[in-house]
């Protein structure tokens, strides 16, 4: 993972994306106990472009030049299947812009804050997201104020209250 993070950081320094942060299951791992997951999701803020799909091409071209293989929807970088996901709404964009620096084996990287992860999971709302929200609530250090502000700003407060009622109140 160290080498993978070094490559991603190099891509950032070479301007292939303006900002990035680890999201998904691996970001959760920074805050909760280990859970099984197979890919490393990297949310990216791409350089300004009219065509979002076209602007992902330089990123994949750069990786292919370095002989990294595209397998299904992932690109395998130093043994880890990585998925680059352009920020797809205001919540995810804000989450990436406010990501925190974390270290892995001495390598500095960016990881989504736990409150943003929870908001994104609530927004995505798949079964595994609901499961992870519960784990995040139980195990991570979440600032209730920060979470409330994010949920309110992105119209998710009702969804959150419903979630709490359903899973926590008897």
């Amino acid at each position: 993972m160290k080498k993978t993070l070094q490559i991603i950081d190099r891509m950032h320094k070479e301007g292939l994306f303006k900002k990035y942060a680890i999201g998904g299951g691996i970001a959760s791992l920074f805050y909760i106990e280990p859970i099984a997951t197979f890919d490393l999701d990297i949310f990216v803020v791409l350089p300004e472009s009219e065509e979002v799909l076209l602007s992902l091409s330089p990123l994949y071209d750069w990786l292919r030049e370095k002989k990294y293989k595209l397998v299904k929807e992932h690109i395998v970088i130093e043994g880890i299947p990585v998925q680059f996901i352009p920020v797809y709404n205001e919540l995810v964009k804000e989450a990436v812009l406010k990501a925190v620096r974390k270290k892995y084996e001495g390598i500095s990287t960016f990881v989504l804050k736990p409150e943003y992860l929870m908001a994104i999971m609530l927004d995505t709302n798949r079964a595994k997201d609901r499961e992870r929200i519960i784990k995040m609530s139980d195990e991570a250090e979440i600032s209730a104020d920060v979470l409330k502000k994010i949920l309110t700003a992105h119209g998710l407060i009702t969804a959150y209250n419903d979630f709490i009622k359903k899973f926590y109140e008897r």
Partner: protein
Amino acid sequence: MKDKPNKIKESAADYAAKIFTSKKDFHKEQAKLPIEEKIKILIELQKIVLKTQKQEPGERLRQVWKI
């Protein structure tokens, strides 16, 4: 003698409550592990999942990380 079943019931409930609390504490402790340790555990979990679950055709890529 009549209240014995209730006592047993109570102590079983207490015992179960203790187990649930200790499980919760264990998960919280695991959450505090360094990320490097968690990645090592993740790789072991990946091996277990791939051994026990069949990969369906067309499913997302699932492989044990080669790090």
